[in-house]
């Protein structure tokens, strides 16, 4: 074990010493994070749809109606004078109560800011429709009785009718977005790219220079040599992850959900990439070919896996195709944990899939790993 650590630690040290290291491992991914993070930045009303109500009513029905708009998913703000800024605003006119009492129809104005989040707007629309249905139903049920009794005889804000709305099965009610999506996405992409490039090239160069053979000349066994090379690449992946998570926490208020599950996700994914990089470095013989293949593979896996855009927004066929990429499983785990507050009971199949990728890549690496040309 000591020899494995000795060999693995050196590979990490050599990577950190590379002149371009901090550019590739920090500056470059940060540019990606800034671009994609802002591109997919979610609206601030996303989690709780804001609804401003301008209540100009002089009777009792305005307040009664507003009470029915209250909901845990709605951030309600009631004003009596028009506000300067709003995402969306419902205007209750001054004669609202009079019109109800006269049983006359009336139209309410619902104004929206063009920049406002559409999904939050849809939530507000639904809530307003629910409130109107409830109010009308209560009026119909009460009939022509005295309105004073209506308010005196019962709690004024008790619903006589409940209206439930539900989205169709399979509808994605929430799309991961913002830096909480982008940082894990770029992390997964750059762990792939950096481990494949640095890890692959160093395996190839060490083989060409017979450094691998020389390690075997010493008292290190084949298993210790392979284990050391694997560990070195795993450490590379973990270092890349730690740097991006650190930057995310420091500059972007990154939320990783359940930190232990996210950490395990990073560990298993980096292990799969560590084995893949040994395989790549074992079968390819030229640096430029390794760089080309690694960049292509990392970007393709990133695109398929939903590192650049939320996989939830792509067509189902593309989503299914993405499962061939280990990045898909890592990203899905992040989304489940970060955005949907899921636990191990939900994401364990993802870990199994990533472990299966790691096992296949390790088998390939072991099959093709050689100490000399």
């Amino acid at each position, binding site marked *: 074990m000591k*020899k494995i650590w000795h060999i693995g630690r*050196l590979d990490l040290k050599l990577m950190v010493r590379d002149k371009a290291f901090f550019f590739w491992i920090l500056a470059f991914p940060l540019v990606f994070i800034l671009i994609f993070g802002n591109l997919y930045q979610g609206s601030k009303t996303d989690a709780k749809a804001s609804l401003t109500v301008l209540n100009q009513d002089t009777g009792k029905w305005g307040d009664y109606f507003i009470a029915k708009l209250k909901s845990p998913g709605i951030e309600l703000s009631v004003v009596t004078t028009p506000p300067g800024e709003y995402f969306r605003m419902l205007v209750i006119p001054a004669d609202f109560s009079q019109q109800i009492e006269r049983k006359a129809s009336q139209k309410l104005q619902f104004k929206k800011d063009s920049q406002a989040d559409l999904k939050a707007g849809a939530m507000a629309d639904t809530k307003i429709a629910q409130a109107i249905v409830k109010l009308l139903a209560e009026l119909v049920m009460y009939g022509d009785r005295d309105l004073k009794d209506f308010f005196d005889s019962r709690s004024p804000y008790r619903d006589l009718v409940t209206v439930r709305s539900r989205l169709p099965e399979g509808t994605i009610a929430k799309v991961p977005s913002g830096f909480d999506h982008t940082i894990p996405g770029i992390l997964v992409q750059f762990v792939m790219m950096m481990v494949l490039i640095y890890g692959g090239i160093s395996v190839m160069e060490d083989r060409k220079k*017979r*450094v691998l053979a*020389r390690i075997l*000349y*010493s*008292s290190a066994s084949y298993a210790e040599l392979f284990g050391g090379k694997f560990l070195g690449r795993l450490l590379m992946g973990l270092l890349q992850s730690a740097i991006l998570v650190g930057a995310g926490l420091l500059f972007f208020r990154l939320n990783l959900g359940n930190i232990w599950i996210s950490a395990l996700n990073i560990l298993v994914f980096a292990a799969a990439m560590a084995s893949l990089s040994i395989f790549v470095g074992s079968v390819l013989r030229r640096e430029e070919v390794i760089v080309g293949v690694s960049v292509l593979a990392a970007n393709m896996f990133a695109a398929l896996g939903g590192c650049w855009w939320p996989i939830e927004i792509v067509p189902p066929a593309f989503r299914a195709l993405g499962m061939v990429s280990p990045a898909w499983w890592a990203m899905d785990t992040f989304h489940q944990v970060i955005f949907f507050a899921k636990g191990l009971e939900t994401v364990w199949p993802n870990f199994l899939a990533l472990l299966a990728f790691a096992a296949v890549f390790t088998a390939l690496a072991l099959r093709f790993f050689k100490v000399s040309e």
Partner: protein
Amino acid sequence: MQQKILEIKNLSKSYGETVALANFSLDLGKGEVLGLLGPNGAGKTTLISILSGTLRGFSGGVAFKGQDLFADRNLRNLIGIVPQEMAFYEELNAMENLMFWGGLYAIPEKELKKRAQELLTVVELGARAREPIKKFSGGMKRRLNIAIGLIHKPELLLLDEPTVGIDVQAKVSILDIIRDVGRQGTAVVFTTHQLAEVEQACSRIAIMDKGTILAQGTLAELIRIVGEKEIVEVSGEFSADAFSAIIRQSDGNGMEILSVADNQAHLAFADSQAIPAMMQHLFGHHLPISDLKIKSPNLEAVFLKMTGRSLRD
């Protein structure tokens, strides 16, 4: 011979149809410096690869200090290997390299550091221990390559062509190091195709070709194989067939043909008085000769006699 440290018995290895080692046998004593001399393809690197444990699929046996070398992995800790390639990390400095390679032998750090400093002094890199290796000359890199092989104080040091691609001054320095290593009790096997190097550095020489040892002994013992003969090297624009045909027409006069190739041939004369007559014979047949060299019996002559070709072939 001193106490035997290495005994190789009937080692054979083939790559398909190509025989790399054919019943190769060799003994080596403690502190002995053996020069393994052979042309490219003689099987030297194959032998080193087998002894270092990285090449399998051979027959025969190797005993190290009386034990089967391949049965006990710990015996590997007593052997140092210096490959032909500069097999170390150029991104590290010399000290860091020695610390890494020594670390593989689980030497305590303090002891390892001391050993590394001593070795860097021995290979004349003490003043440049912390400099990037990329700035080193070929000779300095070769010396570091040897130091890495010695970091764990091996009892047997195997060097595969340790002087390839460096200048004369650097070669002299490396040969001095090899001699010193032997004097300190480490047995050394040193492969090369440079005759002068084995003459300078080795206490025993083995001539190897086509996977087997053709002759071995001290330099004096090997030269006796040729005898007290004058060696004539004939160079020119001729073919081997033309040269052989002309030679066959002469009466010989105790002359021995050591080697004949296109453009060059080596002849040995027991009686130096016979040389002018032979030259006259060759010129008389209008053989286009451009250069003639008369040499005393040396290792090259032995090699030519044993292999029928020069090391350059």
